[in-house]
């Protein structure tokens, strides 16, 4: 995984410009996003937001735990599977953010899960329509919104559930433009 340079966050303040590949100006043709999870390093779900989810098999808490478990296992799976490296850690050994081979998305017939882990261990998961393209830039943009409206919010206590109205409105506005 590549860590981002400091410049990317600095140039986009306080309202970052949206990356290409979004439906800005096309007027309501977007809305490919289903739900979004943000986890911290310890596996606490800082934010869960959904826009389109007709099917719920579990209650919210169990669902978030299952999602974090899946990501954790997938991370160890990809780190072990990595066919390009010779030195590999044991399967299931704890991995630092950015250590070993990570993954950025997986696709099933009904949804696509996009994943990003920041150097500080924040995990952003965006579930979208399976037909969406590469959303790595979009996740970085969402991370920028997160930094601007949550991390820089003096009332926000790190490690607690996010209750920042500005963050939610900006996030909703952005996810509505995804195609």
């Amino acid at each position, binding site marked *: 995984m590549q860590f981002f340079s400091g410049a990317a966050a600095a140039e986009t303040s306080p309202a970052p410009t949206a990356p290409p590949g979004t439906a800005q100006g096309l007027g309501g043709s977007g809305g490919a996003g289903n739900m979004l999870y943000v986890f911290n390093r310890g596996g606490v779900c800082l934010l869960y937001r959904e826009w389109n989810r007709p099917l719920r098999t579990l209650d919210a808490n169990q669902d978030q735990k299952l999602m974090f478990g899946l990501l954790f296992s997938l991370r160890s*799976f990809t780190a072990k599977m990595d066919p390009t490296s010779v030195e590999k850690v044991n*399967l299931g050994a704890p991995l630092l953010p950015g250590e070993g081979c990570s993954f950025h998305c*997986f*696709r099933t*017939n*009904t*949804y696509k899960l996009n994943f990003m882990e920041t150097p500080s261990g924040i995990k952003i998961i965006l*579930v979208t329509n399976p037909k969406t393209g590469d959303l790595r830039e979009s996740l970085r943009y969402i991370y920028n919104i997160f930094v601007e409206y949550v991390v820089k919010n003096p009332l926000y206590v790190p490690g607690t559930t996010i209750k920042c109205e500005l963050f939610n409105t900006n996030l909703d506005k952005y996810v509505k433009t995804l195609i």
Partner: protein
Amino acid sequence: MAAIYSLFIINKSGGLIFYKDYGSSGRMDTNDSLRLASLWHSMHAISQQLSPTVGCNGIELLQADSFDLHCFQSLTGTKFFVVCEPGTQHMEPLLKIIYELYTDYVLKNPFYEMEMPIRCELFDLNLSQAILKDRVSLLGR
């Protein structure tokens, strides 16, 4: 040039019944390949539970930093997956071909016991031909 790194076949209860390496760096020992196979089986099942809509059949494509993983599940629950270079095309048809070879040379073999590791010479032979053919046509593309 190795477009395909490895091939796994998992039976319906998550046991590895076939594994072949086509040139990944760093050897994977037998225990690790068994663990990875059963781990994939459970993650495939969990991904179905997390679907926002009905009718999810599990992960079809996993895009990691250094490889792509294409998975195909047959109606009976046997899973086939190939690990290949990022961005390799036409892996779904290849998986279908491998499934066809499996039905022809493994399932129709009277000495093969269901859900047990595959040890069929004809399957090995035809599989390596199919992979080779895919590699040749890949060079032509």
